[in-house]
Structures are given as structure tokens and as C-alpha cells.
């Protein structure tokens, strides 16, 4: 059975998540969508604002999905699949989870990437972050959680563009520097091209692996580059050391890696904090640039430290290699 994609809509309080979701669900292309909404308040309200068939909207109440009801999220998604199999709900093709405005998306993404009970039937789709064009800059300055939401997103939707111009107030540039690989879309009253939100982004898009160095508000974005190919063992050891010692300081890592043992077929690596997808292999380089590029979004990690780590590890692996 093909795993059902689960996409996550995150974004700070009042940034337009529900408006976006409500509008998306009116799109005929997204008709076969089940929705899980998590609210922080004792009584859920957001689900009343989403216009869709009730049986495909499930509420998770009693806490923020990232810290209190993560297990509930996985169970609820599993229940939805069971109800679909039994014909109790219309046959949906995707699940969308709307988080609370205060949620850290990382644990949700981890749950969807690693939970054994659902791994065969669900797969992580895209992580979408909404950012308010009018209040976005102030929100990013004042609330680290909003920075993390934008940093972890695969796509960023800038909302309320009728109220402010994100290019003029610096929000567009700020988001580009923070998460250069994520396409930025604008939405007026939630109207956005749904196909650009949920279609899987080509992992061989070179833009994913480019990032000028940037530091703002405690978040560093930079790109490690290497012209010589790395040994596969180096890559594995590098990820182990980073996961072991960098902990939650590593927000996101995306890379296109030239591997000695796989000439002409680069490895694609993607991770959120210490949880990584298995490396995937492209059939060819996406463009003429054959260098290893690893984009890191972090809270206080030093680019030079990671670059040195890579060099020393590869030197050790080379010394142990049987030629």
C-alpha cells in the first residue's frame, strides 16, 4: 500500500494557518484531504472555522501537539487510516495536520518520520509555515518558536500581504536568509496555489543546497562546501557526531554529497535535529556544480567547526581505507 502523505501546517499565533487551511480545503484538487487540528485552548474553535465535511476533521485538544499529545497525533492518524479502510470515512489521499501557534514542529516531524506503528502507512509530506506579512518581523524578533517554525519549513507562506509588503518591510529578505531552500509563496486571504504546497519538491533542485552565511536572532544559516569527494563512512560518522554532540542546536541539515564510492551519483541527506531520512541517491548531478554542499540551519553551531570535523573525519577514514 502506498503510504499516505502527512503534511504539517505550522506558524505562529494569528499568522493565518486556519485561513490558509480553510481556503485550501475549498480547492477541488484537495477534496480528498483529512485534517487533524490541534488547539492549545481547552475548547477547540479552529475546527469550526474550517469548512469541510466534519468526519474528516479530527480535533486534538488538551495540549500542544508537539509536547503533550504527540502520541495522540500518531494514534489519531492511525485511526483515520483504519476508518478509511473500513469505509467509515471517504477515501482521503492525504492528511494535513494544523499545529498550535506555539508548537515546535520538530517533534511532530520526528514522530512522523520514526513511529514504527505508522511508518508503513504514513509518510511525511511537506512542512508549511505561515508568516504574517504585517507582524512577521516583530514576531520573529520576539518569539524564537516562530523562527524555528520558519527554519524547519519546506515551504513558507507569507500571509496578509494586503496589510504590508514583505519586500518593503524586510520580512522577505529575513525569511530568505533564514531558510533559503524553502520556496516563499504569498497568500491573500488564504489563496495560494495548492499544487506548490503539497507536491513533493524535487530533491535534486540545486536551490535547496545553497545558502549564503547568515546570522540573525540566534539562528545561523550557512553552507559547508567541499570540492573533493567524501568517503561514505565519513558521511555516516559526520552525521553521528553531529547528532551526538550538537543536539537541539542543529535545527535542519540538507545536503548534496559527492561520495567516493558513488561517482556521478550524489547522495541526498536531509535531517531535522538528530533524526535523518536515510540517504537517497540521485541518478546524476542536478547541474554542473559537482561539489558537496551541506546547508545547515542551527542555533549557535559554528560553520568552521563542522567543516573541520568533516576534514578530520575524512582524513581518518582515508587512513583506515584499504586501497
Amino acid at each position, binding site marked *: 500500500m502506498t*503510504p499516505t*502523505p502527512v503534511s504539517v501546517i505550522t506558524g505562529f499565533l494569528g499568522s493565518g494557518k486556519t485561513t490558509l487551511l480553510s481556503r485550501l480545503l475549498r480547492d477541488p484538487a484537495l477534496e480528498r484531504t483529512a485534517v487533524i487540528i490541534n488547539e492549545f485552548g481547552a475548547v477547540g474553535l479552529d475546527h469550526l472555522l474550517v469548512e469541510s465535511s466534519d468526519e474528516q476533521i479530527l480535533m486534538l485538544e488538551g495540549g500542544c501537539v508537539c509536547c503533550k499529545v504527540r502520541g495522540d497525533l500518531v494514534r489519531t492518524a492511525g485511526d483515520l487510516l483504519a476508518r478509511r479502510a473500513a469505509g467509515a470515512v471517504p477515501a482521503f489521499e492525504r492528511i494535513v495536520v494544523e499545529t498550535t501557534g506555539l508548537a515546535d514542529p520538530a517533534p511532530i516531524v*520526528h514522530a*512522523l*518520520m*520514526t513511529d514504527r506503528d505508522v*511508518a508503513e502507512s504514513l*509518510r*511525511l*509530506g*511537506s512542512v508549511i509555515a505561515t508568516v504574517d506579512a504585517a507582524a512577521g518581523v516583530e514576531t520573529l524578533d520576539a518569539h524564537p518558536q516562530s523562527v524555528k517554525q520558519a527554519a524547519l519549513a519546506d515551504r513558507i507562506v507569507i500571509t496578509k500581504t494586503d496589510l504590508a509588503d514583505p519586500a518593503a518591510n524586510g520580512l522577505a529578505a529575513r525569511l530568505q536568509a533564514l531558510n533559503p531552500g524553502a520556496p516563499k509563496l504569498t497568500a491573500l486571504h488564504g489563496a495560494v496555489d495548492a499544487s506548490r504546497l503539497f507536491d*513533493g519538491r524535487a*530533491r535534486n533542485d540545486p536551490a535547496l543546497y545553497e545558502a549564503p552565511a547568515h546570522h540573525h536572532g540566534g539562528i545561523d544559516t550557512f553552507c559547508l562546501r567541499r570540492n573533493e569527494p567524501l568517503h561514505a563512512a565519513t558521511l555516516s*560518522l559526520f*552525521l*553521528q*557526531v553531529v*547528532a*551526538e*554532540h*550538537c*543536539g*537541539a*542546536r542543529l535545527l535542519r541539515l540538507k545536503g548534496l554529497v559527492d561520495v567516493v564510492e558513488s561517482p556521478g551519483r550524489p547522495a*541526498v541527506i*536531509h535531517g531535522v*535535529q*538528530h*533524526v*535523518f*531520512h*536515510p540517504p*537517497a541517491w540521485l541518478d546524476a548531478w542536478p547541474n554542473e556544480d559537482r561539489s558537496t554542499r551541506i546547508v545547515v540551519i542551527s542555533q549557535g553551531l*559554528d560553520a*568552521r*567547526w563542522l567543516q*573541520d*570535523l568533516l*576534514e*578530520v*573525519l575524512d*582524513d*581518518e*577514514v582515508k*587512513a*583506515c581505507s584499504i586501497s
Partner: protein
Amino acid sequence: MSSHTIDRAAERVLHGALRLWGVEGAVSRERDALILRTHAGTKVRLVRAAASRGWLLFQDERLLGEAAGLPGLLRQLREELAPRAARGRLIVGSPLP
């Protein structure tokens, strides 16, 4: 890359690791070894051995341990110098969509 360049890189990796673990200290080079001194008074001498042995760790001329490579060295040092530092574990999840 020359061994000198790699030694400098290893020195910086160790210094950066101290910062990651919240340990105040410094790393310097003395002849064939890297010397790690913490402000709390711990001194560890790290000697890079042949590839099969990797690294040797000495404290007061006493062999503290061996590590086949940098990952093991960092792990041993963290346990020795910062046992309460956060310790992560690589988890490999579902395939990329």
C-alpha cells in the same frame, strides 16, 4: 590535505567540542600531542597513534583510554569532562518523500 593542516583542524574541533559541552578550557599543541586543559584543572594529553589505534588519551602519564577515531575520542572526552552534557543519538527514520 597535509598532516599539519589536519592537526590544526583537530585542535579546532576539540576546542569547539569543549564549547558545545559547556566546558571552559583550551587546546594547545606540544610536540606530538594535543593538550586539553580545562579551567577546572583537568589536563588530558591526546596522542595521535597509527590508524589502527587512532588516539591515545593520557592523564598524568596514565593511559586514560584509546579511541579508534575522532567520534570515539569525542565521546570519551565528553564522558570524562562533561558527563552531564546533552547526549544525542542519530536516528534514521523513514525514506525521503
